[in-house]
């Protein structure tokens, strides 16, 4: 596609429910990032995929968070048993090679946990 696509753009869920957020990176991009941005705050790193290497999961805040990237393309971020503090914008970004390359961002998923 022309850019990084994220879906849904908005998600409202109830506390305790599981949610899945999807990211379609730019075709051919080997690197994919997930970041979390709370209201008016900076970007908190969550996870980084680079080609066939083991992902860097060092930013995942708890074991309720997981992510996978199938076939080196689409990625899904899953949050289990959502809590109110999970409410934020979840941003996905991809780049051609990974290190020191320009990142192309999606428009994010606004997650609201009631």
């Amino acid at each position, binding site marked *: 596609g022309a850019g990084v696509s994220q879906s849904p753009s908005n998600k409202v869920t109830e506390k305790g429910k599981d949610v899945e957020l999807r990211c379609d990176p730019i075709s051919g991009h080997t690197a994919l990032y997930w970041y979390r941005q709370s209201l008016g705050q900076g970007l908190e790193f969550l996870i980084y995929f680079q080609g066939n290497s083991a992902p860097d999961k060092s930013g995942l805040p708890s074991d309720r968070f997981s992510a996978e990237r199938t076939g080196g393309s689409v990625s899904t971020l899953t949050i289990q048993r959502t809590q109110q503090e999970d409410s934020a914008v979840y941003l996905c970004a991809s780049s051609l090679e990974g290190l020191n390359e*320009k990142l192309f961002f999606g428009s994010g998923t606004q997650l609201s946990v009631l």
Partner: protein
Amino acid sequence: AQTVTQSQPEMSVQEAETVTLSCTYDTSENNYYLFWYKQPPSRQMILVIRQEAYKQQNATENRFSVNFQKAAKSFSLKISDSQLGDTAMYFCAYQGAQKLVFGQGTRLTINP
């Protein structure tokens, strides 16, 4: 771990003025890249400018330029002849051998 600090949560200037946004970082690496990203109200992050640490010459992109002071670990962004469309959150970011790390951002408002 590398950290990026932006000490100005908010800034406001008049249209056509010049504004400088501050950024400092902490690292023990010698080779790395620094970035400034812009996030307008649409939420779409856009790369503004990129600096390679091994290059002494400061990067420029039209009205945007940086002042890169490697010894001081400082990487400020200067916006000349500011325009209303420059209103956005601006994030400084660092990448060495690992993941890209962002600062907390500076909210810049350009007033007419």
